């Protein structure tokens, strides 16, 4: 007898071919950035504006954080907006442009040449973001109903585009005076639009959908999400205005308060989702994700300390470097770890076992990666992160070196599991 699907409802998910290259690229970037960190421990405690630090920060922010998030979002956008992705081809194009642009930019920073590598790197990254933004906007335009998560996602991507445009302007400003001040003077503006506008807003938008979904939580509160969205964006806009038009550091208290309140409310949202979950047992990937949500509070505390130090005319370079480290190697890395091992095994399972569904016993998606390696990865990450941060704050090189080596071990173990997942072959139980 013929068997047919008479599906009137579309459930077409994004193909793994679009998603997996982003994950592989992100893993490799994390490995290289961790290696560069070990090689740079001697000069990392100097000023944050130096070649090694610039290269590591951009490799972490773009090659690691943004690439994994873009990859995952190609898979998650249909879940988020309940609408299939407009174009897989645009997904490939976005990957190719970013994959060429990021190494060029990082290489330009590493050799401190603001000539063609950095400029072409920046241009290609902007093109990649425009292609991604177009793809997401077209996907969303096909959906009639309003959805708070889509508003978060599209706004975050617009902030990412603005971050990249400002970044490219800063590169040009080295050779041609585009802006009234030096490029280094605009770094806090460039960095915070990226961190708050892109990473924070995106994590909140995606997390507010996925955390209750994975926990099977009874909790939902769209009003609170709208308030969080407004607080972040208003805070960021006030920050930009103060940065550009005021010389009084004290005014930065207002945007920090607004964004800190949004973070606290988001933690409250996640806590309520956790408390009202139907599924009592929480797996380790979700625990790591929830931990990374709590870690959002640490950079806020550092930011308050930095502002207080500025107010009292005490410019502490190490606190600023620690602040950046905590964001990229702390919060963003932790959330990517959680997200990778929560989503990637399912993508691989679908790739390998999709046609075997119902035809025999296949392994569970969760069994596709090595849990012992995962455990050691999490431990080396935790100790590496804590030691490196302490080493930075007290400016003690041996601790910084040990911390960086542990982070390198963590990145090797992460890559090990990713390779195991990517090359997984069908196994019938």
């Amino acid at each position, binding site marked *: *007898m*013929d*068997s*047919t*699907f*008479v*599906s*009137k*409802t579309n*459930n*077409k*998910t994004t193909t793994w071919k679009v998603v997996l290259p982003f994950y592989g690229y992100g893993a490799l970037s994390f490995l290289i950035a961790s290696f560069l960190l070990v090689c740079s421990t001697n000069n990392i405690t100097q000023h944050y504006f130096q070649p090694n630090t610039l290269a590591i920060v951009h490799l972490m922010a773009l090659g690691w954080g943004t690439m994994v998030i873009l990859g995952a979002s190609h*898979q998650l956008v*249909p*879940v988020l907006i*309940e*609408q*299939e992705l407009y174009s897989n081809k645009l997904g490939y194009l976005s990957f190719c442009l970013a994959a060429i642009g990021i190494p060029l930019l990082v290489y330009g920073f590493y050799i401190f040449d603001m000539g063609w590598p950095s400029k072409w790197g920046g241009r290609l990254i902007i093109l990649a973001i425009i292609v991604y933004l177009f793809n997401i906007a077209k996907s969303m335009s096909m959906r009639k109903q309003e959805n708070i998560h889509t508003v978060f996602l599209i706004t975050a991507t617009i902030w990412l585009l603005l971050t990249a445009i400002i970044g490219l302007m800063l590169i040009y400003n080295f050779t041609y005076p585009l802006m009234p001040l030096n490029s280094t003077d605009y770094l806090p503006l460039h960095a915070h639009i990226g961190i708050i506008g892109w990473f924070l807003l995106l994590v909140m938008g995606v997390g507010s959908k996925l955390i209750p*979904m*994975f926990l*099977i939580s*009874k909790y939902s509160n769209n009003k609170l999400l709208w308030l969080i969205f407004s607080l972040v964006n208003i805070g960021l806009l006030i920050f930009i205005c103060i940065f550009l038009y005021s010389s009084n550091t004290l005014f930065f208290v207002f945007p920090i308060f607004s964004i800190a309140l949004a973070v606290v409310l988001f933690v409250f949202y996640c806590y309520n989702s956790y408390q009202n979950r*139907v*599924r*009592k*047992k929480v797996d380790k990937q979700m625990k790591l994700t929830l931990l990374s949500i709590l870690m959002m509070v640490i950079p806020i505390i550092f930011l308050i300390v930095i502002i207080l130090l500025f107010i009292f005319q005490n410019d502490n370079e190490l606190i600023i470097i620690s602040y950046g480290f905590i964001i990229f190697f702390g919060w963003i890395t932790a959330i990517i770890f959680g997200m990778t091992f929560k*989503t990637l095994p*399912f*993508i691989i*399972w*679908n790739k390998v*076992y*999709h*046609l075997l*569904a*119902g*035809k025999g016993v296949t392994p*569970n*998606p969760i069994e596709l990666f090595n849990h012992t390696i995962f455990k050691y990865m999490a431990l080396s990450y935790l100790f590496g992160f804590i030691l490196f941060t302490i080493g930075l704050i007290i400016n003690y090189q041996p601790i910084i070196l040990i911390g960086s080596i542990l982070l390198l071990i963590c990145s090797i173990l992460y890559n090990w599991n990713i390779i195991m997942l990517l090359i997984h072959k069908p196994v019938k139980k």
Partner: protein
Amino acid sequence: MNVITNNQLKCTIALSSLLKVMDPEIGLNIVDLGLVYQIDFNEEDKILYCMITLTTQFCPMGDSILLAAKEALQTAFEEYSIHIELTFDPAWNHKMLSDFGKEFLNQL
């Protein structure tokens, strides 16, 4: 959640065959999750209609779950043509879990 059907006896057989179909993320079968809304039998044309939902629209595992459901029903009803319809109206929520499903998620 009660499954709508025009043949209670055959529906029971169909549901017991669907107990083998798991949501791999949750680790619970689709019957106790409350994903099966309706099972109808057209005896004249030998067609089995099954209306199923997913916990989330555009769930990456959706197609695999539907394929597994089709395979399970085909094995149980060899002489029937299996028509599976995916619906999100109404959307799934935790209240659709069976008592066993609730207990399972509580104890996990």
